[in-house]
């Protein structure tokens, strides 16, 4: 569903992504790991369409279309969802109002009628149940006054309602204690199916204990330098990133 080829992107003239290639098929879970500053978050934002980043070379094909041609909102309407590393607060706008607007915009894009209050509420209640969330969350302003864990769970809740085809989870595990991590992972696992793809960006392999990836990629200095399976993540956990850096040097030599 997603085919990234030789993607280069920069911000303020600084090149961050230096030729990324990645294939994601429906039903697959990919984990992207790497040290700080390797370009993990940049990749997430570029895919979601953040305009600060300039794509200087390469291509991104999504469901047969050139993703880079789409505005951020149209990418979302096409089924891409970015769970933010730092979810943004929107004072005065309740979660439910926000989600209803988003969902109906997506529906409008696909020529569907908007969901009216009662129908929408029904859908939302189903999702809160699946994720074992408290309904009081719905009436609170988006992310305002939420704890770190609540914010991350709220991201997954939005994902549950919007039902994206491709979810990009940007360090969804960061800042979570073990219980919150389990709750968030449970949620993601419940939403996973054979038709959607998931890209998880993370520092730590502990998330992968809960959500088992099909592939693990190591991002280093703006490039994917190594790909493997679950075992690669365990190896990274044990040995850190230095051995990969060494390998890289040797290859260059």
């Amino acid at each position, binding site marked *: 569903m997603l085919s990234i080829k030789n993607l280069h992107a920069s911000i303020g003239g600084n090149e961050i992504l230096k030729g990324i290639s990645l294939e994601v098929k429906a039903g697959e879970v990919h984990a992207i790991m790497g040290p700080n500053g390797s370009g993990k978050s940049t990749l997430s934002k570029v895919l979601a369409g953040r305009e600060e980043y300039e794509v200087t070379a390469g291509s991104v094909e999504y469901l047969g279309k050139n993703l880079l041609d789409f505005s*951020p*909102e149209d990418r979302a309407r096409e089924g891409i969802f*970015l769970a933010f590393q730092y979810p943004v*607060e*929107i004072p*005065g*706008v309740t979660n439910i109002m*926000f989600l209803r607007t988003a969902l109906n*915009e*997506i529906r409008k894009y696909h020529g569907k009628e908007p969901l009216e209050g009662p129908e929408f509420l029904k859908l939302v209640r189903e999702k809160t149940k699946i994720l074992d969330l408290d309904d009081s969350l719905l009436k609170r302003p988006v992310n305002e006054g939420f704890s770190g864990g609540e914010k991350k769970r709220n991201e997954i809740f939005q994902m549950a309602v919007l039902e994206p085809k491709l979810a990009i989870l940007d360090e969804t595990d960061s800042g979570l204690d073990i219980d919150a991590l389990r709750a968030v992972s449970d949620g993601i696992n419940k939403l996973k199916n054979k038709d959607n793809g998931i890209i998880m960006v993370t520092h730590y392999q502990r998330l992968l204990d809960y959500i088992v990836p099909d592939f693990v990629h190591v991002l280093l200095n703006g490039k994917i330098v190594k790909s493997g399976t679950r075992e690669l993540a365990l190896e990274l956990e044990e040995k850190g990133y230095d051995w990969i850096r060494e390998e890289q040097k040797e290859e260059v030599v």
Partner: protein
Amino acid sequence: MNEIEQFTKSEYKYGFSTDIEQEMAPKGLSEDTVRFISAKKNEPQWMLDYRLKAYRHWLTMKVPTWQNVHYPQIDFQDIYYYAAPKAKPKLNSLDEVDPELLDTFKKLGIPLEEQKLLANVAVDAVFDSVSVTTTFKEALKEKGVIFCSFSEAVREHSELIKQYMGSVVPYTDNYYAALNAAVFSDGSFVYIPKGVRCPMELSTYFRINAENTGQFERTLIIADDGAYVSYLEGCTAPKRDENQLHAAVVELITNENAEIKYSTVQNWYAGDENGKGGIYNFVTKRGICKGNNSKISWTQVETGSAITWKYPSCILKGDNSIGEFYSVAVTNNAQQADTGTKMIHLGRNTKSTIVSKGISAGRGNQTYRGLVKVSKAAENARNHSQCDSLLIGDKCGAHTFPYFEISNPSAKIEHEATTSKIGDDQLFYCQSRGISAEEAVSLIVNGYCKDVFKELPMEFAMEATKLLSISLEGSVG
């Protein structure tokens, strides 16, 4: 790239002008102008005397400069003080109203035929210096409610006018109040008799049409013992390159157990994106809760005007009286606003609430200025003030000047203020959920204004919501 950088101007829907034969006063201001207006209105001598006193006082006054708005000096001799569509002198029914005028109001969304109006809203339609017609007069009369143009009230209800006009805003009050008292042309008059709950919403729609003309209207609303009325005013003007002055005076009086709810949706032409043209909206609005247990509530949604400068206020004289001020003010492009309220606590156990929501976008500049005054005798006064500012982009400004003068130690005063900003992060977050930047602004702004909009009558709340999104259209690139 900054997403909130580019500011374009959305089309002002009401910017058309009506080509109609006008009768104008000679340009400029003098005693003759005052006499001319008074004669046009067939006013009694006492009214002319009042005007002349006001005019002479105005001559001794200086243009105020303390407000935080900037504009070139107004040449008061370069303004027409009276402009009226040529029409039959007396209008008894709509058949006698110039079809051109009916059409103008229809285009503004105010059909004046009673059957086409919202059944529960009576309208007084003011076009430049005259009231065109007032609807549902008969139905209201049955309840003893007087709702008519100010000019008519001067002739027909002179005792009430003599008693109340200038009792809340005397002509000596300020520069523009003095000017208004001298040259006011029309406006609305409302009297709700004892014990009557006005059966419908009353509203006045002000339309400025003529070029180089000022509009100086007066509104006077009296709710007698136990009476209740909800009143709404709306206003628009054509797009013109020169600035036009709108200097109105509004006075509200509530006797014992009475309540007046006064709502404004102000959409005067705001000028173009470079600040050319637009209305100077310099208005004095004040109400007095004269009787015990009475209540005055101001709600304003100010989206138009090049400059908005007004402080709808409450004098809480009666014991247990309540004053409220709910405001949303928007400044986009080069608009400026210096607005707020004054709550003067005189009686015992008086209570006031202030909720002010400022929205600045473009290069708009906005000031909240408010005074809460508790006099020595005002035992147990309570005030809660909430002043919020929302900035869209990084070229606009918001300022808050709350003043408190508390002379009674039993007073309980609370003040909260916040400033927030719609930033690129919020917009991107919304976009990544399928909501366009423009819709995101509208969503955020409406969420922000919720506390004020809920005070408006239902139909007008919807109108205000729409208006707000139009005012901010194009505020994100």
